[in-house]
């Protein structure tokens, strides 16, 4: 049911996420999302109109200029024509005056035809427009005969040159220019036009013009100008009748308008471009053409009409001008408009494609975002799922493991046992895996937060080492740790996670290393880097003697910068420990550089990139051979990154790998350090301070490790190459060492103790201690025989373990048996030594066994056989440091007893509240049970117990539980 509910919960979470997907886009779009095509067309049309407008406005100017040109040309022509015309008219007027003066006022007349012809011919240049002039007197019908006789001819009509029929009056030509001599005696009044002209002229007394007609003698159009000649001078206001009466004759001349205009135009520029026509518009409905062809030609659109005044008020003339060709289209306007339009269209198109592109990109972006949200949701869901499932799997797995443990306790055949053990091993592996997956899921879900608590780095490293000591010893691998003295004792950070990373790295190394060494180093990152840089140069200069024998075990390591050459620089300035806060002494951050070097199988080159990917292993064959899931490194990477560092590695196949990572911690406040030191600093005994030791080792790195551990105990160390030197040195020098530590291989290489002077005669001889990774029984016997009667320290070295061994050797002074359990039990001993512990169990046998075990670890044990008895013993104040309580007891079981004890303590604590000595009572109580099922643990906690241990005791389990409160709590008895 629980699982189902969980699943449902997931669904809800996921669907919630999907609801978020539905929310609208958060950004505003500035481009139209649809109908871009329509916008483009609208754009094109609008700017089309704009272009036309531009064209028109530019063209209008152009047109106006053309029109102005036409007007000016036309007016010019008209004026010139008019001027010339009036000049001619004036001259004819002068002739009229001449005639009247010399023909009528003089008597007899001084003008005859010859004179007239002569004069007119000579003055013809004055009248270029007139083809000729002639004078015709007014002859009444009564005077016809006299006239005819006088001039010796008959008056003829103009039409057919026949003698004129009878009329009231005549106007026969008597004087004529030579050019028109054919007019002689022709009656001017016989022509309709001329007659009207004559009548009008004499009534007005002014020059008058006929309408245009075809001139006699030429086919040109022309007009006839007629000016009256009076016999007497007339007053200016003479009446029409007076004028008619006074009329003596008429002077006329024919204007050849066509040739006249032709000549005139020929003189002017721009003659070709323009078509000129001259009309007589006296009759407004019927315009008579005087010049130019009747047909319409030229540009019909542009016409200019100029008025012409030829001095005859009765007649009206005008001149029309047209261009011969239509005005050319204005190029500038056209080009401007078209180019502009094209540009605008292009811009529009650009906008259009841009908009389409933007919309597309926005859509894509939108889709991407949705997908991203979905992917994230899926990722979260996955992590949640993993977390839940892992958690859910763990519960039944614990049941399975518990049951398997029980099953193994039953009577099984060897095959069955084998099966069951395999199943249990698999189950354990599965639990480990699930825990790792859970970790990863937590990291991915961002739920993993690092603690920031003060912790002691060195003791953590020691712990990790102790975890792997068994394995490494079995394999014969040298496992060592060294922490630079520059690294502060206590730093703030997450000890659990730091331990996890180290454990993972060291675990991997142990797994993949068959021989050689595993070496964990911790330095300050800045320092390490500086040394590395400095070292690189010297490395370049001379690689004299290869990397052999420069590492911990003498085997070559992947990162050969890590060898002794560099190493001695790293530890060089550590001769004065704890004067360390040099360069970055003020900064609160401690950047640590941790490296784990092994001489294992290495990582194949092709797989090196994948190492930190989850579930990737270098090689599938690897996992078949070595097991494991490959998730550890990826978790380590995440953790390291959470700690503000990064992890990297150097690896050479078949030579080894060196993983190194940096991590950021903060320095502890100075004043708190002092407080914490006591509690956190693993209670290394201080009794060795000031002692001297000589380490006999040919391998400098290994010697440095030994020195590091001894130094932590306050022992000053000399390193020498052979036992002989050590012994001799100890003899000769003033300060005799308190102990001599000899590496096994140095000893085995032949440097026998028998050959050196024995200290037997001296009062206080140095203790001989053998350091070894693994020792066979034979070797042990041999060692004893050789003089290492004092002790054997099994590697890996840990300060606390070394301390315990030394305590045994030096503190007690009595000859212990040679071998000291060098694993957890020593550590347990360190924890339990001198502690007063109460064991409560109703079963006599159990009680004795438990007491015996605890006593072995140095604890002072008292027993109680029932809950009641325990309560009596635990009446406050009491001197117990811890209590181991059986759960199932008659009368009062462990839970009940614990509850009562807690109640008691509570009461007392309340009473003491005001008191100055504010010591809260809380006795650590551990349940002893054969049940390993989780439920029991919860029950334990509920009733106020601090933990539980399995019964009978298993060292590992006991250590774990005891360490929980003896580590976190300062020893009360100190």
């Amino acid at each position, binding site marked *: 049911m629980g699982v189902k509910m969980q699943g449902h919960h997931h669904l809800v979470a996921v669907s919630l996420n999907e609801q978020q997907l539905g929310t609208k886009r958060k950004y505003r779009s500035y481009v139209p999302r649809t109908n871009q095509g329509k916008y483009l067309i609208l754009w094109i049309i609008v700017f089309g109109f704009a272009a036309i407008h531009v064209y028109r406005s530019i063209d209008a100017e152009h047109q106006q200029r053309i029109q102005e040109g036409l007007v000016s040309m036309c007016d010019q022509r008209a004026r010139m024509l008019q001027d010339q015309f009036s000049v001619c008219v004036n001259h004819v007027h002068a002739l009229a005056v001449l005639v009247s003066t010399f023909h009528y006022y003089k008597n007899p007349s001084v003008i005859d035809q010859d004179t007239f012809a002569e004069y007119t011919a000579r003055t013809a240049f004055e009248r270029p427009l007139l083809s000729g002039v002639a004078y015709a007197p007014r002859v009444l019908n009564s005077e016809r005969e006299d006239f005819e006789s006088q001039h010796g001819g008959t008056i003829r009509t103009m039409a057919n040159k026949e003698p004129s029929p009878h009329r009231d009056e005549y106007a026969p030509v008597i004087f004529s220019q030579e050019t028109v001599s054919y007019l002689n005696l022709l009656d001017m009044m016989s022509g309709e036009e001329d007659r009207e002209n004559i009548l009008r002229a004499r009534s007005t007394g002014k020059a008058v013009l006929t309408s245009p007609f075809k001139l006699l003698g030429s086919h040109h159009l022309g007009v006839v100008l007629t000016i009256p000649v009076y016999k007497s001078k007339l007053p200016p206001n003479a009446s029409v009748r007076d004028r008619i009466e006074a009329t003596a004759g008429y002077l006329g001349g024919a204007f050849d308008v066509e040739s006249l205009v032709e000549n005139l135009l020929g003189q002017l520029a721009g003659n070709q471009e323009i078509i000129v026509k001259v009309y007589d518009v006296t009759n407004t409905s019927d315009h008579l053409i005087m010049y130019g062809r009747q047909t319409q030609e030229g540009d019909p659109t542009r016409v200019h009409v100029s008025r012409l005044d030829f001095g005859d008020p009765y007649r009206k003339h005008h001149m029309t001008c047209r261009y011969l060709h239509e005005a050319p289209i204005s190029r500038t306007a056209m080009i401007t408009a078209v180019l502009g339009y094209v540009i605008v269209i292009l811009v529009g198109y650009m906008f259009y494609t841009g908009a389409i592109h933007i919309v597309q990109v926005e859509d894509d972006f939108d889709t991407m975002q949705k997908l991203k949200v979905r992917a994230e949701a899926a990722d979260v869901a996955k992590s949640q799922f993993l977390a839940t499932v892992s958690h859910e799997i763990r519960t039944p797995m614990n049941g399975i493991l518990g049951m398997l443990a*029980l099953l193994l*306790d*039953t*009577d099984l055949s060897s095959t069955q046992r084998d099966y069951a053990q395999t199943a249990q091993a698999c189950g354990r592996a599965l639990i480990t895996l699930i825990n790792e997956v859970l970790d990863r899921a937590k990291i991915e879900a961002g739920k993993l937060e690092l603690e920031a608590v003060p912790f002691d780095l060195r003791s953590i490293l020691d712990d990790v080492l102790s975890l792997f000591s068994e394995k490494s010893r079995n394999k014969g691998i040298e496992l060592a740790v060294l922490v630079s003295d520059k690294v502060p004792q206590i730093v703030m950070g997450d000890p659990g996670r730091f331990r996890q990373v180290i454990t993972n790295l060291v675990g991997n190394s142990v797994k993949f290393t068959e021989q050689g060494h595993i070496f964990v180093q911790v330095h300050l990152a800045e320092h390490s880097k500086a040394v590395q840089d400095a070292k690189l140069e010297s490395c370049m200069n001379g690689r004299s003697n290869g990397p052999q024998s420069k590492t911990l075990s003498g085997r070559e390591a992947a990162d050969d910068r890590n060898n002794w050459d560099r190493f001695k620089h790293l530890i060089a300035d550590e001769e004065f420990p704890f004067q360390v806060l040099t360069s970055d002494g003020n900064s609160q951050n401690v950047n640590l550089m941790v490296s784990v070097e092994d001489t294992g199988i290495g990582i194949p080159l092709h797989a090196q990139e994948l190492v930190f990917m989850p579930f990737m292993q270098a090689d599938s064959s690897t996992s078949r051979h070595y097991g494991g899931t490959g998730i550890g490194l990826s978790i380590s990477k995440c953790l390291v990154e959470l700690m503000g560092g990064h992890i990297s590695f150097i690896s050479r196949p078949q030579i080894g790998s060196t993983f190194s990572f940096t991590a950021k911690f903060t320095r502890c406040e100075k004043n708190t350090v002092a407080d914490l030191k006591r509690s956190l600093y693993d209670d290394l005994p201080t009794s060795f301070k000031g002692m001297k030791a000589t380490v006999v080792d040919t391998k400098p790195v290994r010697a440095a490790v030994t020195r590091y551990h001894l130094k932590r105990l306050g022992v000053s160390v000399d390193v020498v190459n052979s036992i002989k030197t050590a012994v001799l040195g100890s003899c000769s020098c003033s300060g005799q060492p308190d102990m001599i530590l000899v590496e096994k291989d140095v000893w085995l290489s032949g440097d026998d103790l028998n050959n050196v002077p024995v200290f037997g005669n001296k009062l206080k001889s140095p203790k001989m201690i053998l350091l070894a990774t693994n020792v066979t029984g034979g070797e042990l016997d041999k060692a004893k025989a050789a003089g290492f009667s004092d002790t054997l320290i099994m590697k890996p070295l840990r300060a606390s373990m070394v301390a315990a061994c030394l305590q045994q050797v030096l503190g007690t002074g009595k000859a212990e048996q040679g071998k000291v359990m060098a694993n957890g039990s020593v550590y347990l001993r360190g924890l339990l030594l001198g502690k007063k512990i109460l064991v409560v*169990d*109703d*079963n*006599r*046998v*159990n009680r*004795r*066994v438990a007491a*015996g*075990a605890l*006593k*072995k670890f140095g604890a002072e044990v008292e027993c109680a056989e029932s809950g009641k008895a325990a309560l009596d013993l635990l009446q406050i104040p009491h001197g117990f440091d811890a209590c181991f309580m*059986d759960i*199932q007891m*008659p009368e009062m079981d462990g839970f009940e007893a614990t509850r009562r004890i807690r109640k008691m303590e509570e009461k007392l604590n309340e009473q003491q509240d005001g008191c100055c000595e504010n010591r809260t009572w809380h006795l650590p109580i551990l349940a002893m049970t*054969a049940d390993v099922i989780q439920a029991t643990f919860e029950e334990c906690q509920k009733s106020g117990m601090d933990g539980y241990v399995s*019964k*009978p*005791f298993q060292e590992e389990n006991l250590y774990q539980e005891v360490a929980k409160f003896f580590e976190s709590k300062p020893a009360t008895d100190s």
Partner: protein
Amino acid sequence: MEQNHTKRQIKVTRNSLFEQGYLDEQFTQLEDLQDDANPNFVEEIVTSFFSDSTRLIRNVETALENYPLDFCKLDDYMHQFMGSSSSIGAKKVRNECTQFQEYCKARNDDGCIRAFQRVKQEHATLKRKLEAYFQVSL
């Protein structure tokens, strides 16, 4: 020579106890606890185990005579029995005790009685063997 022979015999006897499944590693741990301070620790423990267990067996026998069976009481006795037997590493006895407890839980009269017979039998066998072993080793 004589001593060596005895030593070997002790070793063989001890090994056979392990191989036949009478004892398990808990017994080894007991042996580890034995040192100069407590030279006879193991024997003391074993002796007290047998005196305890004999009393318990008597109690169980009495309880089994009463009818109907008081399974609670039986279970309690057996728990004690099992605790002490696992403390000394008496594997077979402990397994039989577990069996007994199972029957108790199932409230199976016949099963309990049969299981108890086997417990007694194993207990007796172990007692005999261990006595022999300590005889030799001393």
